[in-house]
């Protein structure tokens, strides 16, 4: 569910069918987090090919965030090697599960790079991208 829907639900009380549909949003999450509760990374990127959506960029869904731990691992070196097509060595970081919408062109590139790696590399790449951006913005300290 989008942020907009979340907000809407706070303003307008959902009717019974909406509550029913919403209950399936959480059910999916429960399952997802159950399947992955060993701190495994999750590659869940929803590509929404919707042309009205181009300015939406990244939409982080608060409902879908499951915090396992706050450990942060810098995957920069690993990803640099992966992107260059070299043999990369993996670390096992702790992650938080979330889902969001990506621009289709970005999603395609990310998929291409991740296809060369292994499970979890998609998440690593996304994390690294946002990390760099937030460092540039001065929101977090350079690691």
């Amino acid at each position, binding site marked *: 569910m989008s942020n907009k829907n979340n907000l809407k639900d706070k303003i307008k009380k959902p009717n*019974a*069918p909406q509550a029913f*549909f919403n209950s399936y949003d959480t059910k999916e999450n429960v399952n997802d987090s159950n399947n992955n509760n060993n701190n495994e990374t999750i590659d869940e990127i929803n590509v929404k090919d919707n042309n009205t959506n181009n300015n939406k960029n990244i939409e982080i869904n608060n409902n879908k965030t499951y915090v396992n731990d706050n450990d942060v691992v810098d995957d920069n070196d690993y990803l640099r090697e992966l992107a260059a097509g070299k043999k990369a060595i993996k670390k096992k970081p702790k992650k938080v599960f979330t889902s969001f919408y990506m621009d289709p062109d970005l999603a395609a590139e990310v998929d291409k790079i991740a296809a060369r790696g292994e499970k979890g590399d998609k998440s690593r790449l996304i994390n690294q991208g946002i990390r760099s951006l937030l460092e540039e913005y001065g929101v977090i300290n350079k690691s």
Partner: protein
Amino acid sequence: MTATIVTFGISKGGCSKSTSSGITSYLLSQEERVLAIDMDGQGNLTSFLTGEYDICNVFEEKTVLEAIIEGDARPYIIRIQENLDLIPSNDFLATLPRHMYSKGLKLNALQKTLEPVMKDYDWIIIDTPPSLSEQTILPLSTYSEGGSHVVIMFDGSMFAYYAIPKFIEMVEGAKERYNPNLNTAGILFSLIDSRAKENEVMLESIEEDHPNLKFDTIIKRKASTRRLPIAGFDGNPELKNALEYYIPFVKELKERVEQKQPQG
């Protein structure tokens, strides 16, 4: 061309959903290929079309429940007669939500189940229970290129009158989440007791609340219609009488559905 889906529903019991979906399936199958699906654990549509009432034993593990869990309708389709097939149900359909939960299935699960057979039929006619539940929401959330429609049953009673907007909310919810082209074909008046003096007022109220949704055809109470599950369709001497109101209804339904048909 993929099948046109028509789901019969209303969250009020006894408004003739099973009777109407069964007769509609039968009438459409006279000329076109029809798959009827029973999404109500009562299995009334199943019994109506098969004549079988021992549904828990006869259809043990051969129902729409197993079809949805496996995500494939094909092994569960039974032949009723030429051009008319059925996916039966029985009381075990009550366990559907639990199975969906443990399998992580979403509300578009019936979509996946029907995909392999969508092109085998002209019509998929679905009967639903009188409740807000998976059994009702799954059909509403099933998209077809050939169109997905809803017939809302109304028996002229106060309880059903207030169930209509609630059912429309379900339709809207399914539309928003899974099935953007879902269309309400109309509200079908059934079982109207021609002597009841409030009928006129009910008809007017529906017209005001939901302009142009009411089907022109009104299904009147008929003993021969009520006897159909006993006598069956084959060799039934009063068949013509029993179907009298349903013939113009099906014609109207086809016209409405065609108007909304996605082009191409």
